[in-house]
């Protein structure tokens, strides 16, 4: 547990000092969503219809932006092999790095969402559903993304490969996230959607650090 906290604290410290990463992710998120009114026109009813989907897709793409660097920097400067040579299981280390990733990208996205919801004139019935689905969906995105980030270690042009690996795996989270918000707007029960999303998160929680640690061990063998 100490190790977990040490690593999360170090990663947050690194993110704070080299700044920019979180700021860039949020800036990308806001800009990407702001393009839609220009693209489809400013009619409030059209924007309201697509708001949930647009915000979700933008959140998903922006959380992927910083994924490439999740393990890459530690891999290049030798920290990753030292982390793998500590007395605690590598899975815990991976989990700690995923947690730090969510705190520096998922959480800022969540904070920026209300602004964008207003901007896209999202009906107020869907507001809490959107926040709640993002709150339980973005941790899943960080978890699933970590597998991709670990698999691309050592490869050139990892960024493109990463999106090819990870985006298909994001689809279930996206489907249930958006349909929960749409359901809430049309007054339908959304409990089932939320339970499935929570289920995805609970399944990803042990599986993704395990798979990520496996991929890192593979990468360190070269």
């Amino acid at each position: 547990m100490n190790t977990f906290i040490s690593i999360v604290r170090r990663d947050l410290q690194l993110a704070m000092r080299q700044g920019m990463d979180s700021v860039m992710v949020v800036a990308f998120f806001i800009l990407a969503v702001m393009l839609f009114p220009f693209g489809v026109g400013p009619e409030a009813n059209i924007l309201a219809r697509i708001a949930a989907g647009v915000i979700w897709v933008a959140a998903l793409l922006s959380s992927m932006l910083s994924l490439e660097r999740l393990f890459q920097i530690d891999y290049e400067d030798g920290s990753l092999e030292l982390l793998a040579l500590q007395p605690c299981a590598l899975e815990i280390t991976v989990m700690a790095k995923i947690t730090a990733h969510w705190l520096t990208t998922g959480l800022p996205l969540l904070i920026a969402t209300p602004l964008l919801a207003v901007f896209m004139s999202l009906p107020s019935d869907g507001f809490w559903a959107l926040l709640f689905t993002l709150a339980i969906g973005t941790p899943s995105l960080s978890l699933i993304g970590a597998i991709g980030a670990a698999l691309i270690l050592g490869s050139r042009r990892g960024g493109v490969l990463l999106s090819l690996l990870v985006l298909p795996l994001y689809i279930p989270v996206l489907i249930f996230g958006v349909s929960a918000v749409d359901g809430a707007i049309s007054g339908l029960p959304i409990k089932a959607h939320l339970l499935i999303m929570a289920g995805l998160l609970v399944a990803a929680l042990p599986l993704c650090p395990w798979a990520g640690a496996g991929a890192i061990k593979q990468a360190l063998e070269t």
Partner: protein
Amino acid sequence: MALFSGENILCFRGERTVFADLSFRIQLGEALVLRGPNGSGKSTLLRLMAGLLKPHDGTITWDGENISDDPEGHNAHLHYVGHADAVKPVLSVHENIVFWANLRANAGPIEAALDAFGIGYLTDVPGRFLSAGQKRRVNLARILASPAELWLLDEPTTALDAEAISDLEREIATHRASGGMVIASTHTEIGLKDARILNLDDFRLTEDAA
């Protein structure tokens, strides 16, 4: 009495056999120096010993127990110094070392570790302002900050000046006197008293034999 040994290790890189039938053993207080030309597998052998790589054949054991049976337990015994120094540019020297020391159960005083390599005056300097030699000293101070029995040093003298090399020789001697083991690969002479030498050239398969 801790004993670290390897039996009949076989290792491939790609299609090439790096070394075959290699055995070693080292006890408390001993030092082993790996020698051999570039590409003879010194780094590979050190990574095998650290558990980062798995041998294709043969076993590496600590006190009779295969290290791959309990990798985390083996990690607690060892410190590894590789080619990269793992110094974060935005963290100060002190923060860099504290982070690594806190991952171990037995973190010692950081200041003493820094002074041992003559970098006490750099405590608050961020990693990005350090020279290559200073980074290497930070990396070496890291392994002093949390004691472990086995040191695996891959070319530890790279980028070090004469003064730092003598600091390193002194620390290795102290470490051995307190019952530690050191395995180092090196091209330059470092003064290790009655160290055993393992010449990796002896374990290379010649083309005719294969």
